[in-house]
């Protein structure tokens, strides 16, 4: 038996993992029920950083991710836009990743256009688009925004955009919200924007799971709020829905919470597999020494 388990075809593990993820997606998709979520201190700090600002504050939303990480970061990006819109903040979108502008547009079409029809382009939100240059872009726009962004994504000169009036650089923003999938991302925003201007620039971020451990050292002085992967997104979604969603929030604002179901089952399977693997290892070792 031990020998058989030891030589188990790994494809059975793949099949188990497939079922562990697929079955909860199906059940949650059919029933609409989600697992309960308790927001962590970091999620609360992120939520408060946006919520404590006076209505109409200026928020720079940097969407530094692409469709490859949309599954992890999409829900938090949507929730960020929604909370900013609920608070009537002015949103300045930009991206350091080439596909970022499309994801910005997708969120505008998902959140702002249908649910906040009074929001007007150029007055309440603007899409500044993508600029190449990675951290070089951040280094420039902390002192001179117009040098790299003379026009928005539609080609409208910034002088003709009402909400750009009086914005010389990103130090004029009340908060930076970064959704980051890697390089360039939150680390670069902390390095080139927050650390050189600690009294003027504040940032909160949402990032992929791979990045999260690398960003923890910046908490809380350099990075007061961080949403780590889909778990962080689900906690943050819960906070936003509790405050603004009403008793029956729109299902499009529950993506992160829905995706925690497969996470739970898959993690339980992982833990069981680790325990099983270690048990097999020790049993085999004991048998080896007893021979």
């Amino acid at each position, binding site marked *: 038996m031990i020998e058989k388990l030891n030589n188990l075809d790994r494809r059975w593990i793949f099949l188990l993992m497939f079922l562990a993820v697929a079955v909860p*997606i199906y059940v949650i998709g059919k029933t609409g029920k989600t697992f309960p979520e308790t927001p962590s201190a970091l999620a609360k700090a992120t939520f408060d950083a946006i919520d404590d600002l006076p209505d109409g504050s200026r928020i720079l939303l940097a969407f530094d991710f692409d469709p490859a990480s949309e599954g992890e970061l*999409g829900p938090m990006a949507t929730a960020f836009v929604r909370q900013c819109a609920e608070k009537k903040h002015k949103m300045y979108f930009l991206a350091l990743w080439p596909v970022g502008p499309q994801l910005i547009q997708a969120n505008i079409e998902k959140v702002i256009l249908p649910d906040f029809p009074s929001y007007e382009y150029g007055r309440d939100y603007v899409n500044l688009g993508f600029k*190449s240059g990675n951290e070089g872009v951040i280094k420039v726009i902390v002192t001179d925004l117009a040098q790299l962004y003379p026009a928005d994504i539609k080609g409208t000169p910034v002088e003709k955009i009402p909400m750009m009036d009086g914005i010389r650089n990103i130090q004029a923003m009340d908060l930076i919200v970064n959704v980051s999938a890697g390089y360039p991302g939150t680390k670069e925003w902390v390095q080139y924007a927050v*650390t050189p201007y600690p009294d003027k620039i504040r940032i909160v971020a949402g990032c992929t*799971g*791979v990045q*999260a*451990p690398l960003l923890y050292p910046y908490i809380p*002085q350099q990075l007061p709020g961080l949403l780590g992967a889909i778990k962080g997104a689900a906690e943050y979604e819960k906070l936003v829905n509790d405050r603004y969603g009403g008793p029956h929030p729109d299902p499009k604002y529950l993506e992160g919470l829905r995706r925690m179901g497969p*996470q739970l089952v898959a993690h339980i399977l992982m833990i069981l597999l680790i325990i099983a693997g270690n048990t097999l290892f020790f049993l085999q070792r004991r048998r080896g020494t007893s021979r």
Partner: protein
Amino acid sequence: MKRETTVWLVVMLVGLAMLVAKGVVSGVGREYVQTEQKRFVQVEVPPPIGADADEKPTTQWLPAADAAARSLTPVPGSTELGWTAESPVTPRAYWEGMKADPSRTDLRLSVPRTIGLWVAAFFTLAIFSFLYRDNPFYKIAEACVVGVSAAYWMVVGFWDVIMPNMMAKLSPDSVRWAIPDVTGEPEWAYTVPLVLSIMLLWRLSPKGAWIARWPLAFIIGTTAGLRLVAFLHTDFLAQIRNSILPLAVVDQTAGFQFWPSFNNIVLVGAVLACLVYFFFSFEHKGFVGGVARGGIWVLMITFGAGFGYTVMGRIALLAIRLEFLMDNWLWLIDPTNIHTKIT
């Protein structure tokens, strides 16, 4: 027939049969669009009221409806421009629209978008098939990903770097057809990066490959200089500052705070233990050895947390693909209520 070939054949045939059955019974992935006719005319727009007397009318392209509403006549000899714009709508919106008015022609099934959806589903399954074993479907999907990515980055590099950052600076007039908002005179300083770029490409030449070392040295030097300062500031000095914490946290009103104090002690202790582990001037024996062992534990916990986060990220990626297959493609689930049949 080999056993594995038989397994593949059975899986594919069963999958195909289930797909056909699902399509017949309750429908599968389709994309719908709403079309809108856009018409523009070239008109002479008079100066606004209150403008200077010497200001002349300007020629502009305006939506035909706007021009008609403002009683502006088209410029003689100009032709009207028009196209059909498509915006995606959900199947539910399509069904509701057609139920309310079956004669509507602006709502329709989009064949290209539907093909795109099915191609995306095919590629997702093709990539998953690698988990069973390497096969031609996986190879096709892999080659397409590599090819599309390379082409995409090339196009991005050309339109977002070379055109605006070099061509538009050196010769604004020559790129105005592509970037209309380019203004100003040529900036000859940009010949320096142009020359460096050409020197970099010299690496491909059979002779004189050493010429590429000069721009490479420039790139490495500037990048190192830029990053050194940022890392020193952010990841070294600021981290030292962040690690200097009070071990006993006392609030002026609430008095001694146990958990904040505990957190700070653990944080400072863990930092010191890790530093001792990487301190090799003393042999790791006795007290130093004990602390260093503690440092290893801290590092292992950190790696474990990193692994846990990575697993979570990877499962999220798997979940989104399965969600796509079940929701957008097979219509097995409908969490956002976009393709459930209306009665």
